[in-house]
């Protein structure tokens, strides 16, 4: 290649093509679907809690996208049905995640609805599970001599409790728990929801092939 302009134009055209296929076309398809029926926008407290989730970087260990049973036993673990594009209509930034150092959280509100459990777990995960490697978030809490009338006191085993006084949740911790409690999709899964059905299609093909072999025998 000896000329710069054709090189530059072709290079940018290829990037435009990739943008068309990876961003624009799927974007149109996804927005045509709209939110799943029954999905509610976040309440103010949930939105604040979600901001804490984002700011602490929970994303880097927790996904929010249960896979289909054709691919993995996520549903059997109680992580909920396979998610579809419409389930995320109100998410900005999206927090789908790419890592499961910890479990998927898409339906954590269904699985662990207790505020007390969540607060203890955020203050010190090892107070609940000795094997856990999740960070503790003590700065979302306050050490007080005595709890005030509106304070939510964190229940702690003696090993992790302060020598005197109590640990109470700050607003950030309460909001984060509200967000987690709200993470449950109790509406009926939408028909024709958009998701990667590649595994189901492969399983179907394999079933057909097996059926065909059985039939021919």
């Amino acid at each position: 290649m000896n000329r710069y302009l054709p090189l530059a134009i072709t290079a940018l055209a290829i990037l435009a093509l990739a943008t068309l296929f990876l961003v624009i076309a799927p974007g149109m398809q996804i927005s045509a679907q709209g939110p799943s029926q029954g999905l509610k926008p976040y309440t103010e407290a949930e939105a604040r809690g979600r901001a804490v989730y984002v700011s602490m970087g929970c994303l880097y260990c927790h996904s929010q996208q249960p896979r289909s049973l054709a691919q993995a036993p996520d549903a059997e673990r109680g992580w909920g049905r396979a998610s579809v594009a419409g389930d995320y209509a109100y998410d900005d930034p999206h927090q789908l995640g790419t890592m499961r150092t910890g479990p998927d959280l898409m339906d954590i509100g269904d699985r662990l609805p207790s505020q007390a459990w969540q607060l203890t777990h955020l203050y010190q995960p090892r107070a609940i599970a000795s094997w856990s490697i999740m960070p503790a978030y003590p700065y979302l809490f306050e050490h007080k001599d005595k709890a005030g009338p509106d304070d939510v006191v964190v229940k702690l085993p003696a090993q992790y409790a302060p020598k005197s006084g109590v640990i109470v949740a700050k607003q950030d911790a309460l909001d984060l728990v509200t967000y987690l409690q709200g993470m449950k999709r109790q509406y009926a899964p939408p028909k024709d929801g958009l998701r990667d059905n590649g595994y189901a299609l492969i399983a179907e093909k394999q079933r057909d092939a097996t059926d065909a072999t059985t039939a021919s025998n």
Partner: protein
Amino acid sequence: MTETLGLLLALSFVISLLALTILIWAIANKQVHTPDADDARTIFEPGEGADIDYPDKPHHFDTARSGIDANSSSVVMWLIAAAVFWLIYGSLHGLAASLELHLPDLMSGTAQMTFGRMRTVHLNSVAYGWASQGGLAAVCWIIPRIFRTNLRMTGLLKLGIVLWNIGLAAGVLAIANGWTDGLEWLEIPWQIDIILAAGAACFVAPLIATAKNRNVHHIYVSGWYFLAGVLWFPVLFIVANIPGVHHGVEQATMNWWYAHNVLGLWLTPLGVGTAYYFIPKIIGKPVYSYALSLVGFWALALFYSQVGIHHLIGGPVPTWLVTLSVVHSVMMFVPVIAVAINQHVTVASNLWALKESMPLRFISFGAVMYTLASFQGSIEALRSVNTITHFTHYTVAHAHLGAYAFVSLVLMGAIYQIVPRATGKYWPFPRMIAWHFWLNVIGFAVYFFSLTIGGILQGLAQLDATKPFADSVILLKPYLEGRSLGGGLMTLGHVLLAINLIAIGFAKKTRETETENMVAAE
């Protein structure tokens, strides 16, 4: 609708395949000028290139006398100093994040030091601070050489460096304090991204101006990668950071379109272009089969640009889109094999040079890792493999094989090669270079195999519904400890580079007096 989109999938693949076929046909029928052996010698002067490239060897093309480095070496040295600073800063954050995963209560006192933030500061520091600026240093060094003209608009370049580093420093401070855009690879708040975008834009015009004023007809292969890369990256960065356009799952596809293209259309061109220049230049022989490099370049552009959605396999995105990215991921074998034949055959037929030149050792090790990382990536994108590895530390190992063992080692080699020539000084501690190499190679091997094995076991445990989730965490711990050990050795290697770099800053110019001391050799 579904049928239409199924057709789109097929269309994208057919376009890419057709473009590649036309390119091969055009080469075979001499419709385009096929780069040949003469073009491959662009990087040499007549009569040059029978001997290894030592810093004190008289060049036929005397860079000092032609004035080619008079204005560019300060730009290059600014970039290298900034890059190595971010390498150390990023490595320390990476090491801390790694320790936190098996010692969770070690640093839990402050929000700034929580894993989710340390890890993110690490990624942004090494991707945008280290690899991007290290790569740009190589670009600013190599471009004037392959074009035989001095770098244009160096003032604008320096402004770009200043803006980029101010933006980046503000960005990592924001992330550490909890202000983030919350998308992987796009965490730096968009308000701060404006500074970074302005900095990136400052690099485009000078490099194009230098290309336009070149004194050679042929653009050497490194030039294609560099000139395309410096256009691709600002476009990607600006488009991806415009606020308020994307949300929900559509934002996720944009996220991975961007994030994978930062690797494919930015860091990879920097690494491959650098290796394409230095491997033949140091050995003193042109690359093995120069015509192949054209196929390698365009196939990379066509296929790599569409692989990003393999990060969402099995997720809530359209099936056709995932399949599209899986198919293109597998097609990456084409450009990778083309580059591998060119670079590895050149090194393999001149193995003696690896003993002579430490920079070459870094660069050719990195080039081999490019081949391996890409092969691994293609296989990892297959649905059957991805089910096991997707949400595990296997992916982290793979990311480091590409961004570290490939890109970073190539760039470290480039730094060892460039600095003595840009400063007219010798490395004060040449033996430290060998120590650095082995610390990085051994450290990386420990890192990679720990997370690869740990990741597979983690994935298999999570696929077994009879095992509680806890099992996948407990079994992983020794492998996370292994990662910290490997990461510690790697960081130590980087410290040796920094020591040598600081020391060379205080060293006297010795080029004229000490001609026997061959720095590049052990």
